[in-house]
């Protein structure tokens, strides 16, 4: 394939990746923004979403689309409930102390991951996509006949991948509407600005925290359900999303939703593109170092505002 | 006798996001004086001493200490030159013993020789009257006693300049009398700059007073003169 079509293909793969990453990272970002804690178990909630999606889909009968739709609804809710329970049993008890929360969520990470290993097993398991038409994509060329469209071999995508991108955009718009247009969103923003003040105005901060923690985990699970027909469910699949979400949230500016989405697109696209041309390991080394140095020299992120 | 200037500032300013907390202050403190720094709430007193000892970076202007420009030295280097600073909101090492609190202050200048540290700690704690509580953790002390511990930590550093930020806040009347005597005693060794709200204390022990208002020096002079000063009365009482 020539360079041009190759780049288009890489960008498409990157866009799918960016879509899922945006959902996962926004989940992490909302939790950090409102509760000021870093949830190290976030990647495991992602993994749990994929595993539960497989579980729901394998119980459903009939057309694969039925199982998929059920999974899309049930898996995030179940994961959200599990996360809320963890919030009430553990995080609330350590009073959301930032450092103790990290240690506790590291513990949760191992518990979730290892319990999944005990029950789900070490195999990778696929979920059938609800639809999966292969779509060839055109490319243009200046040939003897002037400008013309060609259909290079190998340049194509699937309807499902386009669906993932579209679904992610719809969900993100939904999150935005929830944050800016609903009472719950108002409570969340108030708590984010000033916890004591929110409490003084009669907002049940404890309940906001429980919902936010569950909501953040649910978003990660939603991203996982979308990706699981492309990438199989596996008990160790939470590591990469965690690392990438970290990178995205830090580059986008801790707690800034808009910055997070922009950074997710940037990282997702460039990761897809870079790893087609460079060694993926080198790309990862560079991106982890980038995050470390952004935190050191520009802790408000690339898009965040410096605190006064 | 011509007095030697221990500390001076020229055009010292600091603003926080457009608000000028300290504005163009020229200040001179002769060696051996007890100087009180007074002014209404928000006049920039704490910011000003913060600029002196380097807790807060100046926006512009310079600080000289013992004939040396210290404007660009970090806080710990300034302290090491012979300043000591006691915090307005008590800031002792709560979970460490009184002994260890004072020993930490003493060791920096006299080294880790055990016998001399012991002697130093004992003498500093005795001067503030906390000898019996040497081995208790600092968090067990009452607020007033924690303030005295702060002062003991200041004493143990043997500073040339001792900066006390509202030292009598929270002290009982009897403790204040004790405190006044202590400051006079310390004055034999150290120059003292004290931020103080309690005007009785100021009038009784200060050799000179500097009044800050809206970050600027409003007046400066001996206590009697300041008491008579119209502008100072206006700033405090809101009458003209």
């Amino acid at each position: 394939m020539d360079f041009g079509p190759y780049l288009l293909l890489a960008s498409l793969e990157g866009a799918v990746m960016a879509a899922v990453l945006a959902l996962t990272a926004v989940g992490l970002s909302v939790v950090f923004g409102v509760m000021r804690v870093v949830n190290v178990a976030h990647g495991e909630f992602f993994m749990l979403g994929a595993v539960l999606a497989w579980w729901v889909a394998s119980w459903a009968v009939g057309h694969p689309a039925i199982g998929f739709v059920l999974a899309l609804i049930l898996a995030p809710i179940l994961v959200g409930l599990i996360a809320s329970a963890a919030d009430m049993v553990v995080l609330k008890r350590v009073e959301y102390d930032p450092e103790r929360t990290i240690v506790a969520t590291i513990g949760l990470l191992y518990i979730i991951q290892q319990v999944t290993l005990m029950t789900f097993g070490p195999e990778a398991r696929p979920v059938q996509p609800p639809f999966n038409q292969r779509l060839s994509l055109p490319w243009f060329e200046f040939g003897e006949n002037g400008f013309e469209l060609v259909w290079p071999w190998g340049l194509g995508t699937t309807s499902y991948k386009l669906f993932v991108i579209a679904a992610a955009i719809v969900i993100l718009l939904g999150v935005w509407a929830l944050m800016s247009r609903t009472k719950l969103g108002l409570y969340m923003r108030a708590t984010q600005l000033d916890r004591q003040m929110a409490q003084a105005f009669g907002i049940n901060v404890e309940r906001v925290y429980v919902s936010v923690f569950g909501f953040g985990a649910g978003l990660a699970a939603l991203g996982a359900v979308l990706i699981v027909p492309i990438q199989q469910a596996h008990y160790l699949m939470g590591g990469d999303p965690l690392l990438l979400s970290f990178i995205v949230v830090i580059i986008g500016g801790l707690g800034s939703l808009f910055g997070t989405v922009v950074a997710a697109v940037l990282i997702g696209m460039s990761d897809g593109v870079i790893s087609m041309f460079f060694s993926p390991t080198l790309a990862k080394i560079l991106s982890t170092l980038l995050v470390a140095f952004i935190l050191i020299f520009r802790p408000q992120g690339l898009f965040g505002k410096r605190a006064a | 006798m011509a007095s030697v200037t221990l500390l001076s500032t020229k055009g010292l300013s600091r603003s926080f996001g457009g608000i000028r907390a300290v504005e163009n202050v020229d200040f001179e403190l002769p060696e051996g004086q007890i100087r009180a720094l007074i002014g209404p709430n928000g006049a920039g007193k704490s910011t000003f001493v913060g600029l002196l000892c380097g807790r807060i970076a100046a926006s512009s202007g310079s600080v000289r200490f013992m004939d040396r420009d210290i404007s660009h030295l970090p806080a710990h280097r300034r302290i090491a030159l012979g300043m000591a600073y006691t915090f307005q909101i008590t800031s002792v090492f709560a979970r460490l013993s009184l002994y260890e609190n004072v020993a930490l202050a003493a060791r920096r200048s006299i080294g880790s020789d055990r016998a001399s540290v012991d002697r130093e700690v004992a003498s500093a704690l005795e001067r503030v009257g906390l000898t019996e509580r040497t081995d208790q953790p600092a968090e067990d002390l009452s607020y007033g006693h924690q303030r005295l511990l702060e002062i003991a930590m200041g004493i143990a550093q043997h500073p040339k300049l001792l900066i006390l930020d509202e030292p009598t806040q929270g002290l009982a009347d009897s403790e204040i009398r004790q405190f006044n005597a202590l400051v006079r005693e310390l004055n034999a060794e150290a120059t003292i700059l004290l931020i103080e709200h309690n005007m009785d204390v100021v009038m009784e022990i200060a050799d000179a007073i500097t009044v800050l208002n809206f970050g600027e020096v409003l007046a400066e002079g001996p206590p009697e003169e300041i008491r008579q000063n119209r502008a100072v009365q206006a700033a405090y009482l809101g009458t003209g």
Partner: protein
Amino acid sequence: MRPEAKSLALHLGLLALLVIAQFVVSPFHHGNLSRIMVLAVFAIGYNVLFGYVGLLSLGHALFFSAGMYGMGLAMQHLGVSALAAIAVGVFSAFVLSAVVGAVALRTTGVAFMIVTLMLAQAGYLAILYFGAYTRGDEGFVIQPEFRTIAGLDLTDPTVRYFAAFFVLAACLLLTLRLVHSSFGRVLVAIRENEERARMLGYDVFRHKLIAVIISGTLSGAAGAVYGLLFGYVGATFATVQYSILPLLWVLLGGAGTVIGPFIGTLFMFYLIDFSSGLTSAYMVVAGVVLVLLTLFAPQGLAGEVKRRLLPWLP
């Protein structure tokens, strides 16, 4: 007895017990104890930073593996003797901890945790990336014929036990000395109230940096010795898991006590050993212990003993 004398007696007592143990325990536990003693050095190194300065690093695997790979690569590719290889390993960790400290200490709190995590992750990936030298994920074995120091065969269980014991004893006494020194007391002062320590005229950054270097170098020494005594150098030791383990050992044993890290390592080692007999998902134990510790015993075992019974415990 003065507190210092009491604590010295306690720690010498522990060391004496370990000498006796070499002659009485079964070969299985004997081998375990050798490993535990070296890993405890890692934990002690971690505790210098976490327990005494209050800085929580999530990247100490970087220093452990720097020591291990410094040692292993020097033997494998430069053909140096075992003792010189250990020196290379320790020196690598020393340099790396100085560099990491100099950059990471510009941050505090959660940012410090994430920066150390990221730098360690970059180190792990670098080991994979330079697979031509490091043999990547597989790692490499150090052949038994090279594992000798001054004619002593380190593959012999008894020699190995005493080598591990020697390193632990040196490290334990060194830390004991450190925490009683005025430098160590300033570290505690920084942990308790950083701003106050600065306003007593202490150079906080310099103290923290030296603490990172001591902590990283001790961890590196543990890595180098571990690789040499047990004959294997592998990328697993550079993963996040090996940054979490010393945190776990120290939390369990008691942060800010000299004896805590050893106790924590001992307990956790046997806990994991026991549960790996029951399930392949043995790391679930680590998770449960971490959560329970943060909930119920943030002071750890030795920390609780110190709080309730022996306040002089250093």
